[in-house]
């Protein structure tokens, strides 16, 4: 929680592809280097006494720089333990967290970096994005490997904070992942627009939108000002608003992100809305038949007088159940 930006930078691992790792040789003859396969299993052709070396406590520097538990042989990734022998995390990712309908590899909650370790790494196991204060001061918080406070959304990897783009019209925050390569991209939806700028569309808001454009420079340049908590804070709304104005009313950057991962606004499912914004206790009363329905679908049924749909809508919209 008290990470500084510098500390976060230091968590970034070495390049993931066949990392050559130096180890201190103990008294008896041991290899001076270990070549790791993609999922972190040592290549047996490179060394003898590999078991002793792999499970020697206190050692770091495995294929992804993660501490390996001496007894279990599992790598600790901050949020979860990873078994290199199986190429899988030992516990599932958070449901509805960064699953992308167009990417089947994202459907497996136990998989590591989309099953492509030669290209990607997942330094923290998960990151957590806090969007709650976006509407008030135009920033979001990113916490590495943990969601220690309420109102956070887990994502499946380490976010490149420079990639964060807010689409005010759609109410979505899109992001990419750090370390050069990405394991796809994601979108967090349903983020309210800053209250003083209730939307871009409409003549009445064009002046306000222009005002945001005018503010973009100072906000972007004020990175130091933005480092307020959780290590990282970014200020994307003004930038995105500028993008929207530049690209026309459809806010193309956000639209592209939405195409990759449909979500947010009326297209977001109730389950996702609940996991992101509502107290989990409402699941006790939430009609199960609407959990996987989109907000638009629930609204349609509610207008047709279906009581369960009305109850679902009320539970989703009542601010008393806000996280």
């Amino acid at each position, binding site marked *: 929680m008290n990470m500084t930006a510098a500390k976060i930078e230091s968590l970034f691992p070495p390049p993931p592809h066949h990392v050559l790792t130096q180890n201190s040789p103990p008294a008896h003859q041991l290899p001076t280097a270990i070549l790791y396969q993609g999922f972190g299993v040592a290549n047996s052709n490179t060394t003898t006494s590999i078991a002793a070396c792999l499970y020697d406590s206190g050692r770091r520097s495995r294929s992804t720089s993660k501490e390996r538990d001496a007894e279990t042989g599992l790598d600790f990734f901050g949020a979860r333990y990873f078994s290199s022998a199986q190429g899988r995390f030992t516990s599932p990712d958070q449901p509805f967290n960064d699953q992308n309908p167009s990417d089947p590899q994202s459907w497996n909650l136990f998989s590591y970096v989309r099953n492509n370790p030669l290209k990607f790494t997942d330094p923290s196991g998960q990151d957590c994005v806090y969007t709650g204060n976006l509407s008030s001061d135009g920033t979001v918080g990113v916490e590495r490997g943990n969601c220690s406070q309420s109102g956070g959304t887990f994502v499946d990897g380490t976010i490149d904070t420079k990639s964060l783009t807010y689409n005010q019209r759609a109410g979505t925050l899109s992001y990419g992942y750090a370390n050069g390569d990405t394991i796809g991209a994601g979108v967090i939806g349903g983020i309210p627009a800053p209250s003083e700028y209730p939307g871009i569309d409409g003549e009445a808001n064009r002046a306000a939108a222009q005002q945001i454009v005018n503010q973009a420079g100072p906000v972007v340049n004020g990175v130091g000002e933005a480092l307020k908590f959780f290590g990282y804070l970014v200020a994307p709304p003004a930038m995105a608003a500028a993008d929207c104005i530049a690209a026309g009313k459809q806010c193309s950057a956000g639209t592209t992100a939405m195409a990759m991962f449909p979500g947010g606004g009326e297209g977001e499912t109730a389950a996702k809305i609940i996991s992101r914004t509502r107290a989990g206790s409402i*699941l*006790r*009363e*939430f*009609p*199960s*038949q609407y*959990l996987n329905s989109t907000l638009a679908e629930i609204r349609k049924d509610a207008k047709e007088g279906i*009581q*369960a749909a009305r*109850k679902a809508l*009320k539970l989703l919209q009542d601010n008393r159940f806000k996280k």
Partner: protein
Amino acid sequence: MNWYVAEAVFQSSIEGVGTNYDPLVERSWFLVSAGSENAAREKAVLLGRSKEHSYSNSEGENVVWQLKTIENIREVMDEVLVDGTEVWSTMARSSDSVSQ
């Protein structure tokens, strides 16, 4: 005929969990057309009961919503419902932490 607003109180229950459940209470305000306040109350009770319903939650439990009471009936002061027609108001001291 006049328009009245009925304040109905509904409460949830889950079958088979006994006291191991903290019910949700919902207050709902809906319009009723009637010739008198008493007639409006009777109609509100019927309407309230017609809104009772049940469904399954994600754990497969049956959630039941039942009308507990019609707590208030208040006549709408305007004869015609148009933009801006006031249907409900409450008053409280600013020091009063309870407001609706």
